[in-house]
């Protein structure tokens, strides 16, 4: 596609439920990133995929968070047993090999009630 696509754009879930957030990167972009942005906070790195290499999971805040990337394209971020502090905007970005900067999606606004 022309840009990075994320779905859903908004998600309201009850505390304790699991959620799945989807990211469809730009075709041909081998690198894919997940970030979390909370009100008044900067971009918090979560996880990074590059081609077929093992992902860099160093930013995942707890074992309730996991992500996968199938076929080097679409990625899914899963949050299990959601907590209220998980409420934030989850941003996905992709970049091309040797590319300059990232292209971000519009994000998924997650609200845990």
């Amino acid at each position, binding site marked *: 596609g022309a840009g990075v696509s994320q779905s859903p754009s908004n998600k309201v879930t009850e505390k304790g439920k699991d959620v799945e957030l989807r990211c469809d990167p730009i075709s041909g972009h081998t690198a894919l990133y997940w970030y979390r942005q909370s009100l008044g906070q900067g971009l918090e790195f979560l996880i990074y995929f590059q081609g077929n290499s093992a992902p860099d999971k160093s930013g995942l805040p707890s074992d309730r968070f996991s992500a996968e990337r199938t076929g080097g394209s679409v990625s899914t971020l899963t949050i299990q047993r959601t907590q209220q502090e998980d409420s934030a905007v989850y941003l996905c970005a992709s970049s091309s090999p040797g590319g300059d*900067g990232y292209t971000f999606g519009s994000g998924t606004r997650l609200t845990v009630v």
Partner: protein
Amino acid sequence: QKEVEQDPGPLSVPEGAIVSLNCTYSNSAFQYFMWYRQYSRKGPELLMYTYSSGNKEDGRFTAQVDKSSKYISLFIRDSQPSDSATYLCAMRYSGGGADGLTFGKGTHLIIQP
């Protein structure tokens, strides 16, 4: 000390004014510097990209890097209400690709008509 410091604002200026946005950083290994613009409920979009020290101009926007002072700036001339957004600085080490960006928290800019 955080790696990248950025005043969150808000910074409010009248239309037509020159705007100066700044970031300081602590790691002298950063070589590539970027500015992203983020409108409300949208993902960040790459605005300017510079390598090492010096100036880069693109229309009404000028990015300036002073590596000796570990200080980067974005200037906006003839500011417009449509420039109202959050501006995030980002930087990375030398080496290919766009992985490993470190972001500032962003400055919220308001241009008053």
